[in-house]
């Protein structure tokens, strides 16, 4: 039964300095060798030793990360299979690129609880824990599917459905001709099937590229810190940059009118923009400053509106909030300087009005952690319940999309090399099945339903 190699993250991503990616199964060493460059190849490396090296993408030759790799030969491992553990620098970006690399080199995404399941099936965990193992599988699966559903809400799932529908339509066009040869519709030709397949490949490609975290991770997330003068914008900026490892980037600053910093918040690359620079360097040019602020807000992915709560929620604060709302930007309200407010009731009154606001005291380092959580939450579109499951489902979805694309390419090749329509259908169906693993739909029934709803058949 167990004959494939699985990969997954075994530490929580974003919360720790390093993340550990685990590979388990007969091809673990083989797969690791394809992407790892160290002093020794993984196959040569001695069991239960650790070695330093680099993970290099065999697609782009890009160095993904410097890592430590532990090799463990079966049976003295967690799963009693050959296991490789790769410790990489923490963070969403690196962990997901690494996982994707493993998936495209022959590993399969681990199902929830699968390492534990294998440990049990291979006799590593004793019988008394069988029930616990079963519970873990069911519980984790429910959690993952909950996350997956949340992940899939919105534009990704819409695009995914469009692609699925197009494949189903094309397949039913082909299948209706195969199953009802005397049906009096225009028969689809190989060339038409090939053309439609190409166009679907373009769609799926754009989906892979725009895949939610993909965009944020590649391009970074732009966060604007806004607020009246002296509410603590620069302090917050400094606090966030000092706390988080600054990341080096080759994106040149387009303008120096604003202060920009690149930081990594819980694995999400973030470009922080402090609009403070605007007002304070170009002091008197009020009008120009306001325009710049608005421009910064409209470019941002997320706006932090900092308020000096010791002065209350002023009219100027309201103005800024309205500007953000007008730009339809997601924002986080932070009530700073809570340490300066003697009457705590004053804070509570405002919190009651704005329950999402974060009470904060930058000088006493309170509330900043929560802000970071909120940023990470927004980045993963899942403000509670964030953990590596989000990453795993995302990486899995992308892996599935890539597999679907491979099948579509194969369908295209079949259509241009004058194979028959039934072979093209075979590849299309395989593509549909891969997409079905994301959405949980069953391909066969959908195609048959499409045939009957679209064509008028019968005796």
């Amino acid at each position, binding site marked *: 039964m167990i004959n494939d190699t699985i990969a997954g993250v075994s530490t929580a991503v974003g919360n720790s300095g390093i993340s550990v990616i685990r590979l388990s199964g007969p091809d673990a060493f083989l797969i690791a060798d394809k992407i790892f460059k160290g002093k020794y190849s993984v196959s040569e490396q001695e069991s239960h030793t650790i070695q330093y090296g680099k993970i290099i993408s065999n697609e782009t030759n890009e160095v993904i990360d410097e890592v430590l790799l532990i090799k463990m030969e079966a049976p003295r491992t967690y799963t009693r299979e050959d296991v490789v553990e790769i410790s990489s620098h923490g963070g969403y970006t690196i962990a997901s690129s690494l996982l994707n690399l493993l998936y495209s080199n022959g590993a399969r995404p681990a199902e929830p609880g699968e390492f534990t399941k294998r440990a049990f099936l291979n006799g590593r965990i004793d019988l008394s824990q069988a029930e616990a193992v079963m519970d873990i599988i*069911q519980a984790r699966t429910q959690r993952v599917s909950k996350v997956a559903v949340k992940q899939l809400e919105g534009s990704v799932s819409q695009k995914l459905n469009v692609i699925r529908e197009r494949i189903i339509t094309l397949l039913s066009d082909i299948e209706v001709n195969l199953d009802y040869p*005397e049906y009096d519709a225009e028969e689809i030709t190989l060339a038409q099937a090939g053309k439609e397949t190409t166009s679907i490949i373009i769609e799926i490609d754009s989906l892979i590229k725009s895949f939610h975290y993909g965009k944020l991770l590649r391009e970074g997330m732009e966060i604007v810190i806004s607020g009246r003068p002296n509410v603590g914008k620069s302090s917050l900026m400094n606090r966030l940059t000092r706390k988080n490892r600054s990341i080096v980037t080759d994106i040149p600053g387009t303008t120096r009118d604003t202060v920009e910093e690149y930081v990594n918040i819980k694995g999400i690359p973030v470009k922080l923009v402090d609009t403070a620079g605007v007002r304070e360097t170009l002091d008197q040019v009020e009008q120009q400053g306001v325009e710049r602020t608005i421009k910064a807000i409209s470019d941002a992915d997320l706006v932090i509106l900092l308020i000096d709560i010791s002065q209350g929620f002023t009219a100027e604060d309201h103005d800024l909030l309205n500007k953000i709302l007008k730009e339809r930007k997601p924002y986080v309200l932070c009530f700073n300087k809570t340490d300066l407010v003697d009457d705590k009731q004053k804070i509570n009154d405002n919190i009651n009005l704005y329950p999402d606001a974060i009470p904060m005291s930058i000088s006493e380092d309170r509330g900043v952690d929560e802000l970071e959580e909120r940023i990470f939450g927004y980045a993963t579109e899942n403000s509670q319940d964030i953990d590596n499951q989000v990453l795993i489902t995302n990486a899995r979805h992308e892996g599935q999309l890539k597999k679907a694309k491979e099948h579509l390419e194969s369908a295209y090749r079949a259509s241009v090399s004058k194979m*028959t329509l039934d072979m093209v259908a075979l590849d299309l169906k395989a593509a549909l099945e891969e997409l079905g693993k994301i959405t949980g739909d069953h391909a066969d029934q959908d195609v048959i339903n499409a045939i009957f709803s679209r064509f008028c*058949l019968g005796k």
Partner: protein
Amino acid sequence: MTKESAQNDRGTKRSAQNDKRALRKELNGYIIKVIYMKDFIGGEYDVIVVGAGHAGCEAALATARLGFSTAIFTLNLDNIANMPCNPNIGGTAKGQLVREVDALGGQMGISADANFIQSKILNRAKGPAVYSLRAQIDRRAYSDYMKYVLEAQENLEIKQAEVTGILCENQKIKGIRIHTGTVFYCRILILTTGTYLNANIIIGESKISSGPDGLLPANRLSDSLEELGIELLRFKTGTPPRINERSIDYSKLIEQPGDEDIVPFSFMSGELQIEQVPCYMTHTTAETHRIIRENLHRAPMYSGEIKGIGARYCPSIEDKIVRFADKESHQVFVEPMGLGTKEVYLQGMSTSMPEDVQLKMVRSLPGLEKAQIMRPAYAIEYDCINPAQLKLSLEIKGIEGLFFAGQINGSSGYEEAAAQGLMAGINAAMKLQNREPLVLDRSQAYIGVLIDDLVTKGTNEPYRMMTSRAEYRLYLRQDNADLRLTTIGHEIGLVTPERYNRFLEKRRLIQGEIRRLQNTILPANDRINDFLERHGSTKIVTGIKLYDLLKRPEMEYPYLKEIDQGAELPKEVIEQVSVSIKYEGYLKRQMNQIEQFKRMEERRLPEEIDYEKIHGLSLEARQKLNAIKPVSLGQASRISGVSPADVAVLLVYLESRKRKG
């Protein structure tokens, strides 16, 4: 599944049942008097088959041929293996089924080859996975032929009677009772009652209790099934009108001839040569559509008269016109019903409209302006069982020795019926021999797909086989049915030595020729390159194996004659060789998929597992698993409501069970 919860799933069921009761009250007037002779025992058999349609014939022949005393009961001896609907056998996916029945040692292919009047391969250009053979059949001749085959069969008795009751003791089959009260005992009972159970024929406003083709319905057996706790469904199907061909102006129709090169259904048939009869084509007109729209209120499907669930692939013409309103015309095929009759079948005009509307509709078709309707079109409603109550062997769960096959299982089509009949017959014999049942899986045969679909997923409309239902259709081709199944049929004992030797010889020739093609290397000389150029293929600079040459899409096996001296091989051998070379890559991929599939099928789930007690299974999965009692992890994974996580849990459960010993 408890009986009650199952019924809740099927909303239409209850009201249909009440209908039936009311109808039965009306009918009591017809049954003059039944005096049961005090348990007169009419006979004792190993196997009794009820119904002599396409399923019943295969079932009875199989058990009799395997040496068991068998009796087959039919309402009317003159309608054995009747074709009450389309006068043809085969077609997409169905042709594959007939081939598989034949490869296992069944009868349908041989009978079809003996009585066809036109033959055609469909989908010739669309790929080997979907080539399908279809033959127009002389309906009367086929029925007579099949009756004779049954009569001539050793161990088989044929009886005309209505079976009215099932005798069962301690959940074990004992026998049957017929309309006269006579009792027959048996160890195994196979029900293949087709569309006859509580059948109603509906034509417009008229609804009568009748089986198809004016035959008697079986109105009492359903009660007996319900008493045994078997859940019934009510399905509906229909058939178009029959016309006297003398009244058709054929000059306005388009002729549809058969293929010149006749491919037989049976692997035993060899070369066939007959004078073929053409079919014809016409189409509906704006006038037809107008007539239908104006009379829609009189169509029972729309007036609410028909409550049975109909098949989507077999809609009536009024259905088509309502659902696809923008389509201006539909094809209508005129198919001969046989050589000894002038009756023709109007494929595409299935309807349950009143007779007067039917006549107007038919006469609006070009060429049929003066058509005389011999038998009007009708819809038929009938009882069938919910097939999810069956095991994969087609024996029902909970009653020892009771098997079901054919349309009573919610399927439709002669071929689907024959395939199930054969399997029920084989498994009845296996049971009597204390052998494991023969269960073909989805990667072995369309038969496997058919039975697995019915049993694992159930069906909410008459089930028709389609190539799109088969995951591994590239492997499940009609041309290799014997290579897939004849060894199995041989082990069962249904394959005659003659058939088996033929098969062995064919396999030897195929393997030999593939080896030869792999070992023969063509030199890169002018003669070869001329040959390649002639056939639009790229020239070679180094030698090439014949095998690799054949992989080129433009290269066909028969061309090789020009440059290569191979032995003369039979057509079917060349076909196998060509397909396995041309599609090698795809076939390999499919074989990998099959291997994966098999691993899941091989994880057996013992019958005694109580899924309610398994920790970690979702609630829905527990209920469904307990109702279906799947035999393998693979089957479990196909039940709707059983998630991949549930399957993983089952895997862990199986392991812990194994360790406990």
